[in-house]
């Protein structure tokens, strides 16, 4: 979930004031396809790392398989890095990227 920081612009009257909203774009954890990793292994890893139920883990695995990559989690940078590391430790090809 993106975090939202409202900023009130100083020097404006109440009527003229506007609330600008800066939305910090989340970071995506991406898993990339490879030609050798068994599908069941990917599902087990998604269940273990994220605690996803079997059907969600399977859906994400199929997205990786058919589209070459899948965004498996989005959120703040530190947590994205942490999940990416856990996926790499489990032997998956994973990176992070800022949401576009």
């Amino acid at each position, binding site marked *: 979930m993106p975090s939202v920081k409202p900023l009130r612009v100083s020097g404006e009257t109440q009527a003229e004031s506007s609330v600008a909203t800066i939305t910090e774009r989340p970071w995506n954890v991406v898993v990339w396809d490879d030609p*050798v990793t068994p599908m069941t292994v990917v599902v087990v890893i998604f269940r273990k790392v994220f605690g996803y139920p079997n059907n969600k883990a399977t859906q994400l695995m199929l997205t990786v398989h058919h589209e070459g990559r899948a965004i498996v989690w989005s959120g703040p940078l530190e947590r994205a890095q942490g999940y990416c590391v856990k996926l790499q*430790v489990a032997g998956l090809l994973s990176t992070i990227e800022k949401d576009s």
Partner: protein
Amino acid sequence: MAGRLFVRRRDGRIEVRLNDDARAIAREAFGHVLAAEIDPAHEWHASLNGPIDPSHDVDDPLATFNRQHEVTSNVELAVATLNEEFLNDAEAWAWLCTLQIALRATITAKGLLTKDRLEGADETTLEYITTLQTFLFSLADAM
């Protein structure tokens, strides 16, 4: 048809049904992962140190330290339980992670990252890959 190599027992443990030859293959794979983690010259080293954020030249040092620590912990646990008849969940997870790292490091080191290139690999490499996949498939099925 070969029987299952890893079987979940009713008491929750996972039985390891690998024969001596299969355990020797697992031992070799674990040994390579352990060596690659500490030896920059090892052909698997690059695979174990892939980018976390490819848009930056250098990754967060804490993240890379955590990765190294967790990989080492897993492979050490896998090596320590190599001859066990039964694995608990933490040990099985360590085996799965280490075998999967070995599998991916093999194709990365040999440049077999597409199906076309994989199909052109030599017979010995393909046999090794298939063996690791068989281990992983059975272990994941039991987890």
